[in-house]
C-alpha cells in the first residue's frame, strides 16, 4: 500500500534556476539558500520517497487563458520542459508514473474534485526549481513525479479551503493505491511577493514567518483566509501560498517538523519547511 512519508513547502523562484544552471549556488548571494537545503538532502536520503506529488503552478508556459483549469493533474510517464521565453534549460524531462497518476485521478474525480487530466503537460520553474533544490538531475532525475497544477493566475482561483480539502482527498487517494510507494508531497510557491503594479517588490517577512508557524501547527487558520486577505498581507502573487495547503492537507494533523528556513534576497521570501508524517 502506498503511503505519505513527508511533506515539504518551498518557494519556486526562477532566478534560482538560473543560478543553478550557471553553477552559482555557492556565490555569496545564493550560499544561504544552498545551505538551507543541505539537511533536506540528508532527510530525503533517509525517508527515501519513491514518488513526489508536486503541487505547483504553471506560469504561462503550457496553459493559456483560452482554457484555464482550476486543478490540472499530470497523467503521463514523462513531462517535457516548457520554454519560458529564454529557451530550454539543460535538464532532462521529468519522469512520471502514469498508472499512479490515473489512480489518483479516479479517486479524486469520483470524490468530487473536478480535475483536468493531462496526458501532455510541459513543466516550468514552478516545478523544476524545487526539484533542482532537492535532487541532482544528472544523469537523470532520481524520483518519479506527479505534477498537480493549481490556478493561481486568473481569478477566480480555488479557495484556500478548497486546496486544503484537495490535500485531504489526495491522502485518501494515495492510501488506496495497492502498490508500495513512499510518497513525498511538495507544495510550492510564495512567499510574500508582488510582481505587478506600483507595489512591485512588496515583501512582508513578519507575515511569512507567521504563515510558516500556522501551516505547520494551525493550518486551518490559513485555510480560512480569502485571496483578498492573502494578497493584502503578502502581495498579489503570494496567493501561490494556497498550494502549500494542499501539501499540508495531505499530511497527518500532527506532524514532526524537520527543517525550516527563510531567505529574502530580492523580491520574494524564499522559504523551506519539511515535515514528517505521523502516519
Amino acid at each position, binding site marked *: 500500500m502506498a503511503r505519505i512519508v513527508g511533506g515539504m513547502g518551498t518557494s519556486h523562484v526562477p532566478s534560482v534556476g538560473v543560478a543553478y544552471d550557471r553553477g552559482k549556488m555557492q556565490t555569496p548571494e545564493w550560499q544561504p539558500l544552498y545551505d538551507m537545503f543541505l539537511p533536506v538532502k540528508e532527510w530525503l536520503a533517509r525517508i527515501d520517497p519513491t514518488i513526489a506529488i508536486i503541487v505547483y503552478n504553471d506560469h504561462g508556459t503550457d496553459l493559456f487563458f483560452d482554457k484555464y483549469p482550476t486543478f490540472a493533474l499530470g497523467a503521463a510517464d514523462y513531462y517535457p520542459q516548457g520554454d519560458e521565453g529564454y529557451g530550454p534549460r539543460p535538464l532532462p524531462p521529468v519522469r512520471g508514473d502514469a498508472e499512479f497518476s490515473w489512480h489518483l485521478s479516479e479517486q479524486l474525480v469520483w470524490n468530487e474534485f473536478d480535475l483536468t487530466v493531462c496526458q501532455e503537460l510541459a513543466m516550468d520553474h514552478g516545478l523544476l526549481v524545487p526539484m533542482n533544490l532537492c535532487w541532482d538531475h544528472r544523469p537523470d532525475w532520481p524520483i518519479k513525479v506527479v505534477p498537480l497544477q493549481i490556478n493561481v493566475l486568473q481569478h477566480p482561483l480555488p479557495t484556500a479551503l478548497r486546496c486544503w480539502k484537495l490535500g485531504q482527498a489526495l491522502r485518501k487517494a494515495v492510501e488506496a493505491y495497492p502498490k508500495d510507494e513512499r510518497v513525498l508531497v511538495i507544495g510550492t510557491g510564495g512567499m510574500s511577493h508582488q510582481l505587478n*503594479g506600483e507595489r*512591485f517588490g512588496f515583501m512582508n517577512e513578519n507575515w511569512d514567518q507567521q504563515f510558516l508557524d500556522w501551516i505547520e501547527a494551525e493550518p486551518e487558520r490559513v485555510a480560512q483566509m480569502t485571496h483578498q486577505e492573502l494578497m493584502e498581507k503578502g502581495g498579489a502573487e503570494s496567493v501561490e501560498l494556497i498550494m502549500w495547503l494542499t501539501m499540508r492537507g495531505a499530511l497527518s494533523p500532527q506532524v514532526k517538523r524537520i527543517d525550516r528556513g527563510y531567505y529574502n534576497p530580492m523580491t520574494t521570501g524564499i522559504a523551506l519547511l519539511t515535515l514528517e508524517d505521523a502516519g
Partner: protein
Amino acid sequence: MAQLEPNRPIDGTYVFDWRLSRKGYRLNKLAFSLSRAENRDAFKENEEAYFDRFDLSEEEKDLVRKRDFLGLIRHGTNIYMMLKLGAATGNGLYQMGAQQRGETYQEFLATRNVGSAT
C-alpha cells in the same frame, strides 16, 4: 464565499481577475506566443507585422512599442505572460519591476536586501 473585495482595492495592485483577463486577451495571446523560439524570431524581425497576427488595437500596439510595462499591466497583460514579452525585448523581471515602480534599475536594486542576487 467571495474571495475578492472590489470595494477594498489594494494600492498599486492589479488583480488579474476576469475583467483584466478579458481586456488583455489579445495582448496575452501575443505574449504567450513568444514562448516559441520561432515566434520570438518573427517578433524581433518585424514587430509591426507580428502585431497583425493578434488583431491588436492601436493603443495595445503602442503599449508594446513603448515597452510601457505598467501600461501593459493596467491593460490586462498578465505578469507571467509579460515576462515572455520582456524576454523578447531584453527586459528582465527586475527591469520591468523598476519601471512599474517608477524607479531606475539601480534605484530599485538599492531597495533590496541582496541587490546582487539577480
